[in-house]
């Protein structure tokens, strides 16, 4: 029996995160990060936004988006840094740091939202 590898699971999270990030992030950054601060659009009222976040499903979804996107980023950062800097022999540490960061982000999101 060969050693089991966690890569399939990490890759699934990475791919899911990639899809979620691709579908959601550009529009959110466009609205909240660019158009509203620049005054092209008005900020919606805090109450409206809070209302949007009110249902539990939405909160859970936000947590999922956060976790997936962070995993996506963590996965790519792990591999790219190893390839660019040639530090693949420290893979275990790098992987722990990257995925650890993603998990931490998830925890913070839970704390914020619930």
């Amino acid at each position, binding site marked *: 029996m060969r050693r089991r590898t966690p890569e399939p699971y990490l890759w699934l999270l990475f791919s899911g995160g990639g899809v979620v990030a*691709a579908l959601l992030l550009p529009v*959110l950054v466009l609205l*909240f990060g*660019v158009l509203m*601060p620049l005054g092209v659009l008005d900020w919606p009222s805090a109450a409206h936004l809070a209302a949007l*976040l009110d249902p539990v499903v939405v909160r859970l979804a936000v947590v999922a988006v956060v976790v997936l996107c*962070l995993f996506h980023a963590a996965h790519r950062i792990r*591999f790219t840094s190893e390839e660019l800097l040639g530090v693949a022999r420290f893979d275990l540490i790098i992987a722990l740091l990257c995925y650890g960061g993603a998990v931490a982000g998830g925890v913070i999101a839970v704390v914020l*939202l619930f």
Partner: protein
Amino acid sequence: MTTAYRPRRDYGWFLRNRNYAVFVARELTSVFVAWAIVFLMVVVDAVLNGGDPAAFAGRPWVIALNVLTLAATAFHAVTFLNLAPKATVIRLDGYRIPDWMIQGGNHSAWLLVSAVVAYFVLRSP
């Protein structure tokens, strides 16, 4: 007899050809993805815990960074959705659905999702 020459490690490989550079750029969009999440969490925090999202988002450096982030996440979206057919070969009747159809579907989904999100956010109460 191992007299073969083993080339030294090439630290600048990603500068050797345009495609490599595009690849690295694609991978580095992930840093912006991470930042986008951080930024959105700050906004969420402000919304839920009584802060002013506009104050943080309005700082010049944050706007500048977000303009870059917009470009990066859009680039991420385009590349990611374009590459999807490679992993998902779909066959109907034994013949393969051409890549452009799958890509077209992905991009339509992206537009749709974006429109829905924008609608809910901007719908005035």
